[in-house]
């Protein structure tokens, strides 16, 4: 089988992932977290039962990997203002209290594990730094907002 023929199922799996899962997620930041969560911590391989059942596990894994990298670059290209807005949408859609999420994110920095493998190191640093800044800006806004009685 030639390379082009091999790419077709990956493209189909990618389109399927986009249509069935990613389009239903509220923002790019949430998409990134979701895609990173499909990656195994130890092996670095991506797993998605539904996608693997419709295609093949390796094809599904490749589609997830491509989508992960794509969303990561998209998010890293956002301005700080846009990233703060992404964070707002993410916090609004979260079932936890925004203040708790902010505290945990600032303390544990879980977004570090959301970086795909084999991305440009300078872009990875920019992403981490921008998330840190966006969190600080959010915190600042929260502290200045009038408290509800």
């Amino acid at each position: 089988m030639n390379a082009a023929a091999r790419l077709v199922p990956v493209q189909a799996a990618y389109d399927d992932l986009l249509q069935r899962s990613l389009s239903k997620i509220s923002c790019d930041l949430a998409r990134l977290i979701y895609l990173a969560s499909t990656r195994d911590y130890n092996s670095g391989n991506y797993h998605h039962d539904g996608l693997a059942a419709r295609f093949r596990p390796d094809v599904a894994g490749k589609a997830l990997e491509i989508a992960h990298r794509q969303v990561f670059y998209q998010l890293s290209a956002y301005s700080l203002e846009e990233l703060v807005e992404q964070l707002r949408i993410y916090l609004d859609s979260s079932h936890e209290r925004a203040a708790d999420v902010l505290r945990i994110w600032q303390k544990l920095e879980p977004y570090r594990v959301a970086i795909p493998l084999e991305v440009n190191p300078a872009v990875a640093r920019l992403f981490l730094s921008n998330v840190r800044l966006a969190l600080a800006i959010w915190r600042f806004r929260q502290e200045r907002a009038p408290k509800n009685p």
Partner: protein
Amino acid sequence: MIGIPTALLLGTILLLLLLFVAARGSVGARESTSRSDVPLLDDEAALDPCPPEFVARIFSPDDWKFVSETGSAQLEKLFRRERKVVALAWVHQTSLAVRRIMREHTQAARHSHDLQFATESKLVLLYAELMLLCGMLFLAIQSAEPQRVRGLAVYAGTLSQRLAQAQHDLKTITAGREFHGAS
């Protein structure tokens, strides 16, 4: 009017000074970025220049404007510190990528039978210019804010992409010639 020996002497001193600035910049950038709390993701063997749209983003004045509008001195301080580390990491990565490209090119050139003087000279000059730019950027980022040297950084980013493309093209041509020579 200065004589040829004086001009040569001045030229040599200037060249040595430029090499010193470039080397100082590269070492300094490595030290500064490795001191940061961000894990070192650099895999020198596979390092490519950073895509141009991200170079523009790192050195963008818009983010600074957004942060300064909050009116928080603490946020401004945090932004300056964060962006400086990212900018220095980019300088370090660019200088590593440029050196890797030239190393690969030198290795390939050793086995080549049809080196073209003009092409080789252009590549060496491009390399020297990039190393010098990295040194200058390192010093400038240390003393001023990254957004102030945006033009220089974008120019260095474009040059590094050009060098990577030139090396890629040469590799393709050499591989093509070897293939035809073997068949």
